[in-house]
Every structure is written in C-alpha cells, then in structure tokens.
C-alpha cells in the first residue's frame, strides 16, 4: 500500500471511529433524556392502581394489539421525524412538549437512543 493510500485508510478509520463514538454519545444523551421526559409514561414499570403498565405503554399496547411493541424502546420505526411529530403535536391524552422541554437536539438524541435500544444494544 502506498503512503497516500495508507493515509486515506487511516483517515477513514479515524472518521469511522469518530462517527461511531459520536453516535454512542448521542444515544447516551438520548437515553438520559428519554428516562427523564418519556419513561415516566412510556417506560416499562408498573402503573398506578394495580395496572400492569405505565399509561403510555398500556395505551400503545391497546392501540396496536401486538402489531407493534408497546414499549417505545423496542420500536424500530421511530425516527427523529416521527418523534418530532408526536412530541410537538401531542396525540390523544399526551400533550405536546414545548421546545424548552424537549429541544430539537433532544429529539435527535432520543431517536439515536431508540435505534440503539430497539436493536438490542443499551
């Protein structure tokens, strides 16, 4: 391998590692935000008053009847655009979240986290 090819390969390796590292950091931030702002309703804990699930998780279980996972962390179809729509517009009894609560960056990070969690990594 020539010197210039070696340099290019090394640069690609460094860039690849950097991208992987950045993605991991996004997912880590996304997990923290998810646990702060989403998990109180959409987490995997039990609900109040003897309910088996938290309200958001239970609502999605009833809605999808098994065609999609009730837990957001197992969903593979929630990209940033979809998350933004639900967060900013709200749906059913979930009210919209304001940009001071969940920023655009948070949405991207949550999407990164859900990609990771739904693929089995966490």
């Amino acid at each position, binding site marked *: 391998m020539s010197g210039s090819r070696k340099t290019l390969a090394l640069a690609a390796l460094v860039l690849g590692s950097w991208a992987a590292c950045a993605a991991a950091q996004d997912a880590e931030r996304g997990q923290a935000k998810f646990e702060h702002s989403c998990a109180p*309703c959409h987490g995997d804990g039990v609900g*109040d008053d003897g309910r088996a699930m938290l309200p958001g998780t239970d609502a999605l279980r*009833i809605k999808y009847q098994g065609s999609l996972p009730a837990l957001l962390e197992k969903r593979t179809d929630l990209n940033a655009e979809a998350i933004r729509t639900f967060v900013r517009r709200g749906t059913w009894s979930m009210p*919209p979240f304001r940009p*001071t609560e969940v920023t655009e960056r948070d949405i991207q990070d949550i999407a990164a986290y859900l990609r990771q969690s739904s693929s089995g990594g966490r």
Partner: protein
Amino acid sequence: MAILPPGVSAESFQSGIREFQDAVGRDWVFTSDDDLHSYRDHFSYIKDQPNELIPSAAVGPDTTEQVQAIVRTANKYKIPLYAISTGKNFAYGGPSPNVRGSVTVDLKRMNRILVCDDKRNFALVEPGVSYIDLYRHIQANKLNVWVDTPDPGWGSLIGNAMDHGIGYTMGYYRDHFGAHTGMEVVLPNGELLRTGMGAMPASQSWQEYRHGYGPDPAGLFGQGNFGIVTKMGFRLMPAPEHWRNGLVTVPKRQDLVPLIEVANYLGDLAMCGEPWYGSPLTELMGNTEFRDAALAFNEGEMDRQAASANLHSWQVELQFYGSERTTLANWEYAKELVARKVPGARFTDGESLKTPLTREQLAATTGPYPTNMRRNITQGVPGLGIWYMTGRTERNPNAWNETHIGLFSLIGRSGEAVLKAQQDFAAVARKLGMPSLFPNAIQTPVNWYQFAFLMGNGFGLGGGDVSPAGKLAATAKLREVLRENGALGYGDYRAPPILQDDVADQYSFNNFALRRFNETLKDAIDPNGIISPGRAGVWPAVFRSMRGGMRS
C-alpha cells in the same frame, strides 16, 4: 395563525420580538405555528374556536436577569405576558394564557435546584424544577427528605404552589403554597424583590422564616399577577422511618359527623397524614332500591338497606408516619377515639412498612382490605401513573378524556357540612338538568388541604359530547354550576382561564371589596397591565373591559 397581542401594532410587536431575542437569544423566542402549538391547552374546551387562548409568541429565559429584560421590553411595547413554569397544570388550563395574544414567558429552562437541605428540611428551586426532578435529586444525593407531590409529578413545585396545588402526605406539607418559605419575584417594572428573610441582603435564614418583617406580600403572587416568581423555597418533610395505615368504618349515615371530628383531631395534632374518605355503600349502586333511596336522601332507608347488606355507611383510611412504635400508638389511639364516639365502628389494621417502600410495596394494591389509597403519592414518589385517567385504557379503548377539567368547591370540614353539600350539589345538578354521576348521598370529601374539605360537584357533562358545540355547551353549563354554587356559599379553589372570571365572581363580599382592592394594587404596581392580565379575575385597568369576555 399569526396573531398579535391586543392593542399592539405589528411594528411594535416585531420590535418587542427583536428585543426578546436580544435578551435570550434567537433560539429561545418562538413565533412559528409549529412551535406555538405546544403552548396551547391540550384539553381546552374552546380548541380551534376564534377566542381560543393562544399566545402570539413564547420566550424562554434561562436566568432571572433575562426575565427582567423581558419584562422591561414588555412594558416598553405594552405587550401582555403570561408566565408558565413547567407548563403542565392540565385540567386548569395547561400553558394557555388568560388573554389571547399574550407572549408566554416559559420558565422551563430555569431548572436549577439551588439548595436542598436535609438537616434544616427545605429546598430552594427555580420554576422549571419538577417534582420528579427534585425527587431524583434527593435520591441521587441520598438526602433524608421527601417531596410532597401532586398526582402527576411532571409539574413544577413553583407553578403548582402558585396555583394553590396540593399533595398527599402530612398536613403541613400538603398545602404547597402554605409550605413555601419565601420567594424571589421580578416585579412588573423589572425590579427584583425577595420576600421574608430574603429581603435582608445578608440573611442566613431565607427559607426558615417566611414572614420577614412588616407586611408580607407573598400571597399576592399566588394565583395572582403581580410579578414573575423566579425562585421559591419549600419546606420538605423529613423522611419518616415507618408508615402504617388502617381502615375505620362506621355503620350509620349520621356517623360521618363523629368520624370526621376524630380525623380532624388527629390530623390537627399532626398524628396522621391525609385521611381518605369513602363509602362502602358504593357496592349497592347497582341496586335500584338503594339508588332510589340515595337519590332521595332518605337516610332511614339508606341505613336500613346498609344494615341489611351488612355494609357500613362510611369509611376513612388513616395513615401514619413516624417510627414503628409511634405509628402503632397513633393508630391504637385513633381506634380508641372512634370507638368512644361511634357504637359499632369497625377497625381493620392495614399495612405496617419500613420506609422507603420497595418498588414492589409501592406497586402493591392488595392488603388486609381493599384500598383506595394510592401508594406512590402517600410516599412522596412522583410519577405519571395517574395519567391513565385521561387516556386510552381497556375500559375506554377508543376515546380519551379530552375535556379533563378540575372543579372542586370548598366546604366546611365537618360531617354536617358534607351531608348538606351532597344535597346542595344534587339540587344544583337537578335544577340545571345535568346528569348526576352517582347518588350524591354517598359522595365524600377530599382532605387535600389540612384545614379544609373540597368536593367535586358530582355531575356529568352531557353524555360525553366532545364535539366543538358539545364542549361549548358544557362550558356554558359549568358557568351556571359555578354561579349556583356561589349563591349557596361554595367557592371553587382553582379553575382554567376560561372559567376564572366565573370563579372570581363567587367571591363578591361587600360589592367585590377583595377584587377592588387587588385591582387597585394591580393598577399601581403594573400600570401597563403587562403581567398575566385577567389571572384569577384580576384585571388591570387597560384590559378591564375584557372581564367576562370568555362568556361571549
């Protein structure tokens, strides 16, 4: 849907927006429809109506200095502001302002826990701090204090206290405004004020003596519009080592009177936490004979049928915080007091648990008796589990509670007052042709405030018609209920902006002396009327013609 604040030209508004951007940065001033959608009341009865209470813009400061700059700009251009903390307060208007076109001052970014002291038992926080945030901070730092949380824990300590919200532990802590320990406020002219010992520059005890010296204006800022609170202290309950509960039932309808006397006595001596009242006669609801007797308030017949079914008329679940031995002693004492006053009373020991409860104990719903007590909130553990009440459930798979609203009237803290309120509320529902949700003769009060009872009004809103017309009709009906209740001496403690003038109208003693006093102050302190005009029915002179405008 670009709208302008009332009386503000497009030019002035744009100048104001530019100055808001200079103050907080362009990223934190929101004017697009997409962004402003999240500042609407998700549960509004007037959603998409021409008078829906939506802002013209929102601005998100990060510091007190930025709030001061926003207020000064608003004064310059006479732009009405509406401050929110975490912006929840659903059932009471969510983040929506009183005046359409106001600029929302969104304090969520100010989310610092400045002090949390578990030796002197207080916290000092900014408005964006939620109950969940403070709870997590306490857990992470292994602090020996509890949070007294309302049902949904995403709300702000400051916002909830500002709207006179409540909790579920010991009496002193349940009144969230009452448990405050001083505040910092940006006044309508942009100046900064601190109440209590905070008024003393070198004070070492701001969170320990809220009165300071001389008149204390703190009450003006609760459900008020005299400034924007940017810091506030709260007394925190020291973590008890043990929790115990027990059930008391009494056989006859009139036994409610001594039962409440005992619970008041124990609560006011700080020997028990919130008592949870109920009626075992709920079981007889499906029985036509009983229901007829209950709807007619036929006490003799209700007692006869209750005895025949071997059911008692009333129950109270008592809970005790302290040590294993003190909670046992208090429970034994409660039994002794009730037994002295009520022949035939029955007692069932509940659970006796070391705190903090385990996750399994928090989730448990079974025990020595069926309980209505929600474990998390009695243990000061905030969450969102209660939100199932608004959403899709097995019983309600195809709809959500989009007219979620809270209306509770204050009533006297006695059995006589409860029994009278039941009859009064039922009479109002009949008079207004509203479907009664249940025989009001078994409705019980909540003792959220230590020294007061609240009762919901016990009626349905017209068969769940959630069409725009149905919601408008329901709103009109609610106004009639508030008027009728007010005439009978029942005032509400809290309301969404669309009904705040109606509630304020209930408080009309001496030709509205209180309102006139508040508005005299308002005009002096806020001559441009820029801080939350109309909040709790207090209208500044420049917007006073808008009073009652939501009724049209």
